[in-house]
């Protein structure tokens, strides 16, 4: 049971960590100063969330692994994030579309997780929900601004949405761990989250004057540790310092 809980928390933690790591690549490269600050601030929230979750995962595991051990000393196959998180940042439209899909998911997921019987997860969820809400508002507005903007911004966002949509069904593919956690009153009902997420996506796409692309294929595997070719490069950059000088502190 505790290993199911460990895996469950690791998944949440890895999603936040890898999303935060990707988003942080924009720091100093944002399209303009205000957006640079927004992207970096959001990345900071995500990494803060990852720290809380990975610390707790280490506690649950009970083998003395810290948040840093889990972030820097696991190999690619041991990471459990959704594939969408590790995709390269792309252009600003791609980053915006990914963030919107993820923010909407996080918002409804953590809103439900607040009621978890596990008090630590419930506390993390309540804390993180306030930030998710702010992120969602920000990325939704950019969706509308780019989608209902110039021919150029609309073309780029349309392409980004089409590229990213096949990665979203992985959000809702419940497996045994999800089922066990839900039975214990910890995990959330993914069907409910899916309905809310779909409504939100439809609403914002409509406002952005974009058609929702049909789903001809889907991509997944991150939750089983089967990652895309981008993951190794991401980890190499993220982990190189700790791997070179284990235990190094600022």
């Amino acid at each position: 049971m505790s290993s199911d809980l460990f895996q469950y928390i690791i998944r949440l933690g890895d999603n936040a960590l890898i999303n935060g790591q990707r988003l942080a690549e924009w720091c100093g490269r944002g399209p303009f100063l205000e957006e640079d600050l927004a992207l970096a601030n959001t990345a900071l929230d995500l990494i803060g969330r990852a720290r809380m979750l990975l610390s707790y995962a280490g506690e649950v595991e009970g083998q003395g692994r810290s948040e840093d051990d889990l972030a820097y000393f696991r190999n690619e196959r041991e990471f459990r994030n959704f594939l969408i998180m590790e995709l390269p940042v792309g252009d600003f439209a791609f980053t915006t579309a990914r963030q919107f899909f993820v923010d909407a998911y996080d918002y409804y997921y953590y809103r439900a997780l607040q009621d978890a019987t596990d008090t630590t997860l419930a506390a993390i969820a309540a804390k993180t929900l306030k930030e998710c809400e702010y992120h969602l508002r920000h990325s939704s507005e950019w969706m509308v601004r780019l989608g209902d903007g110039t021919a150029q911004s609309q073309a780029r966002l349309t392409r980004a949405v089409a590229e990213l949509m096949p990665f979203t069904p992985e959000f809702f593919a419940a497996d045994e761990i999800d089922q066990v956690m839900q039975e214990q009153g910890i995990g959330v009902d993914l069907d409910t989250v899916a309905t809310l997420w779909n409504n939100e996506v439809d609403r914002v796409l409509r406002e952005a004057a974009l058609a929702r692309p049909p789903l001809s294929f889907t991509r997944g595997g991150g939750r089983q540790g089967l990652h895309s070719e981008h993951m190794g490069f991401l980890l190499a950059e993220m982990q190189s310092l700790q791997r070179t000088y284990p235990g190094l502190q600022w």
Partner: protein
Amino acid sequence: MASKPAAALLATDMRAKQVSSPPPYTATGGLSAGSGIRQARRILEQVADPEIPVLTIADLGILRALRWRHDRLQVIITPTYSGCPAMQTIADDIRAALNRNGYTRVEVITQLAPPWTTDWLSAAGRKKLLQYGIVPPAGSTSKQSLRVPVTGLACPRCQSANTEEISRFGSTPCKALYRCNACLEPFDYFKCL
């Protein structure tokens, strides 16, 4: 994360404290552990926030509780934002301030529940913020104030309500950037959370 039923713990811990290690400021003689807490609180009420130095951690509502756990003084703090980089500095500053004043065994514990809200900003803190040029959170926390842009904030310099948001994210996670259309100066707004 490490929230414990404080009331029952406190009483026994205070007794243990008196037996195992005398308060560090014995010059005054016979101080109870209770006043040790009061003294420590007074010390911590002077610890400034590293990002907004006009505010203390008490003004911000980051400082939640103090208690003895055997011979260790536990300081319970709560983070403002999950990723706020100031939290590490704040924990270090707390330890340093207490160590300087003779509290040698200090443990800083981060507690997440209930989550921090700008409603915990003290009245004095709100006043200090405004004098410093940062507009304090408008009203109390609600979904509305977070998702809908806040309009009509009074400029901290010229008091005009003709102001607009220019960036939802500012120099620290807790602030947004506004501009006054009357005096044309930008100013920080402390977001509602």
